[in-house]
């Protein structure tokens, strides 16, 4: 084996808060050979991002410190390098791309200036001399018409394009090592596939090494040469990708590999009563212009969607971000105004005011995406769950309410004693269970689930999917399941709507759509989601 390019030896990272010290990374060692892609896999909080950030000493010192370890790169220990010497490495020999393309670029600088800055810092290229190189870089990362894009500001680019610009910046000085910290997590599946293909191609051309941090095992399998599995700040297993996936040794790796959402959706049963019905649902946001605020155009967020949802069934709504799937859900739950008939348990609710809706709200519940934002931080879990009861079942005494709360917590598999505690004491998965309990305590008929699993770790995701299916079969619930994650949708939905730019692309029984997609867009979406393959179909967003 050739000498490793980067060698992390016995690295520890500790964070101090007050007198407390917590070890985020615990004696971790790994090597990256030249031209190799090493993947660091683990759930949130496992220390993978902290390990990567300490390679370039990007942690918030002195709150963070390294009690032990060395990071050898080119014979130098990066942990002990002086700040100016380290700056010569950063952005030059080792570069980094981050998860969030929306915030990683300075919103006030043009693309040209942001890429030019790196060239100027490390190669003293500036102005007109740098422009050909910048254009070249933009072309390499697949930005169309780079000449026109030079003067663009980040807000004029889509998420995928911004991530491409970030990659161009990272490549500008032909680094030996690229650290990619969840570079595709914030992107849509089709864009993710394109970005990964781009990174693989660039790696082949330049022969650079890559440290790839992700929680998505599908990406690791497709993309990486070797993998290190991290949990609780330790690397529990390391080895070539094929070996690890074929024959995992450590219990945690096995659990991680088994955590794909599985199970079968409920059977379609046309005899069940219709719970939710929509005909030609439209949500248009007017664009106003001029002094008199005349309506010049409409943003058609949802444009003519028909759907029928029966008790005990799940309708999956899939699509990329901006396709209008959440807007559709909010319109059905009457949280935003819309046009078109909405039928809910035999009533036409589309003309109902907020007051008129209130008596129906107990049977029409919503679970939101972000379990951290959806629970009021200042209320105890019991109060959060009881809030709906106070509105809809005023006759209940305090004891009755309390026992209903306990029942709901029991339903979602949480200990009733937790109801005195506050949301911040719970993990993401537990919080999502609390949010589900809040909906369940009112005994709803219809639940709109707006990406309930996408903020959760893989293993937790599978548990929540099981819980949702279990609740559905016990209470004959109708779910509107909104997600961009096709794996989860496949495990839950018996009907599916594929949305794009507010319109339905394809609609039908989930099995049929997954097995034999009719539309090109659906095919591209499925290929990107299940095979992480970029399909060059006209109109797939860049």
């Amino acid at each position: 084996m050739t000498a490793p390019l980067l060698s992390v030896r016995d690295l520890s990272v500790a964070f101090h808060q007050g007198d407390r010290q917590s070890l985020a990374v615990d004696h971790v060692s790994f090597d990256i050979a030249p031209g190799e892609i090493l993947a660091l896999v683990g759930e949130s909080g496992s220390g993978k991002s902290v390990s990567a950030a300490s390679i370039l000493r990007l942690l918030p010192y002195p709150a963070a410190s390294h009690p032990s370890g060395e990071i050898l790169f080119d014979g130098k220990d990066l942990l002990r390098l002086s700040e100016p010497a380290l700056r010569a490495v950063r952005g030059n020999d080792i570069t980094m791309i981050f998860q969030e393309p929306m915030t990683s670029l300075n919103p006030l600088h043009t693309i040209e200036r942001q890429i030019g800055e790196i060239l100027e810092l490390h190669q003293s290229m500036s102005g007109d001399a740098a422009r050909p190189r910048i254009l070249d870089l933009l072309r390499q990362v697949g930005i169309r018409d780079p000449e026109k894009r030079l003067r663009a500001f980040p807000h004029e680019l889509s998420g995928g394009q911004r991530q491409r610009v970030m990659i161009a910046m990272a490549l500008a000085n032909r680094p030996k090592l690229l650290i990619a910290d969840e570079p595709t997590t914030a992107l849509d599946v089709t864009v993710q596939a394109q970005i990964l293909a781009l990174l693989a191609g660039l790696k082949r051309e330049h022969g650079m090494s890559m440290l790839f941090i992700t929680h998505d095992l599908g990406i690791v399998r497709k993309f990486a040469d070797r993998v290190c599995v991290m949990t609780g700040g330790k690397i529990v297993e390391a080895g070539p990708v094929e070996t690890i996936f074929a024959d995992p040794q450590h219990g945690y790796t096995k659990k991680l590999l088994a955590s794909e959402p599985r199970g079968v959706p409920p059977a379609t049963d046309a005899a069940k009563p219709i719970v939710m019905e929509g005909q030609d649902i439209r949500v248009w946001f007017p664009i106003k212009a001029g002094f008199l605020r005349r309506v010049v155009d409409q943003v058609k967020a949802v444009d003519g969607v028909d759907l029928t949802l029966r008790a005990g069934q799940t309708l999956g709504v899939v699509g990329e971000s901006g396709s209008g799937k959440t807007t559709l859900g909010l319109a059905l739950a009457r949280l935003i105004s819309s046009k078109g008939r909405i039928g809910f348990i035999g009533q036409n609710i589309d003309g109902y005011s907020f007051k008129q809706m209130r008596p129906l709200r107990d049977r029409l519940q919503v679970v939101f995406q972000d379990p951290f934002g959806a629970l009021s931080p200042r209320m105890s879990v019991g109060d959060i769950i009881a809030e709906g009861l106070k509105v809809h079942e005023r006759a209940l005494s305090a004891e009755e309410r309390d026992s209903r709360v306990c029942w709901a917590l029991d339903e979602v598999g949480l200990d009733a004693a937790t109801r005195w505690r506050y949301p911040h004491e719970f993990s993401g998965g537990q919080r999502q269970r609390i949010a589900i309990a809040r909906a369940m305590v009112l005994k709803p008929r219809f639940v709109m689930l707006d990406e309930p699993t996408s903020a959760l770790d893989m293993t937790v995701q599978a548990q929540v999917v099981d819980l949702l299916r279990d609740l559905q079969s016990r209470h004959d619930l109708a779910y509107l399941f909104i997600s961009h994650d096709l794996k989860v949708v496949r495990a839950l939905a018996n009907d599916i709507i594929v949305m794009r730019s507010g319109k339905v692309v394809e609609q039908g029984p989930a099995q049929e759509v997954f097995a034999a997609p009719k539309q090109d867009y659906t095919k591209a979406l499925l290929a990107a989601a299940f095979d992480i393959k970029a399909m060059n179909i006209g109109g797939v967003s860049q």
Partner: protein
Amino acid sequence: MAAVPEHLAKPPKKPFLTPINRRRLENFKANRRGYWSFWIFMVLFVLSLFAELIANDRPIIASYKGEILFPVVVNYPEEKFGGFLAVTDYRSNFVSDEINAHGWMIWPPIRYSYSTVNSDIPQSAPTPPFWLMDKQQRCKAYPKGADDPNCIIGNMNWLGTDDQARDVAARMIYGFRISVLFGLALTLVSAVIGVTAGAIQGYFGGRTDLLMQRFIEIWSSIPLLYILLIIASLLPPGFFVLLGIMMLFTWVHFVGIVRAEFLRARNFEYVNAARALGVGNWTIMRRHLLPNAMVATLTFLPFILSGSITTLTSLDFLGLGMPPGSPSLGELIAQGKRNLQAPWLGLTAFFTMAIMLSLLIFIGEAVRDAFDPRKTFK
């Protein structure tokens, strides 16, 4: 429905402060300057609340012919002591001799109230503090000169007298009290109004917000001073009239931050979740949004408080404030300006204002830092 097990039916005993509030308290204490300022200010304020026991022209307790009297709280007519006036002047020789002959009395440390005129001043008012004169001089006006039994420390003017021969120290104590009380009342009332208005604007947004914002812009561009001038000619100025007029204008200070907080927080998912549960608007505002806005409001309070005090003082200085005769720091400053030969007037007012406002600003800074979640202390 499962019955609740016995041990789960009762909530665990809650600590008095939630962890986050305990952290804030720790942060506040960690700011030594602010913490000490807080205690110094509280001691001064609580003392000034009992100003009647510190500086008064009536004894605290007196014993007269075997009867225990409380002249501080009870208005005894002079008849009781053989006089004829409706209100007893305990400082007069006639009454004090009568009481001392038939019992005793305990005086406050300063035997002047804010409106008491010292009739025994050694020279024409304003007179300097007693420690700037020798004993002969300071007792000059008493019948027996330096040997007079009344020429004692309690009858001395510690900080001199003003141009109407009233004791400056007593006026300062009462003036401090009224300033702080006025500031507190104004701050609290305008906080209630401002937070309500900001909450309504931020929560409902849209046209409500637009109309109220324009109204506030027009409203806050009305010059306060001219309004006060006009109203002072229509209404007799007094504590509550001033409070009412100033309140009309100070509440707008709170609207901006509270509105911003509500605008930000009304799209939080837990607010949407509450809306999806069918919870009413007012309940959502009170239960879910107000706690967010309270941090910003609390941070703002000490600065509004010091601002209110300054405004009252400047009005008094201009003669548009409290009615003539009331103890006020602004009036003291005005006197200092008129009587440059008596620097104790201006200096007393200056140091009182400076110390009071500095303490409030130090407290305000410490509160602000304590509520700052990003602030870390060593």
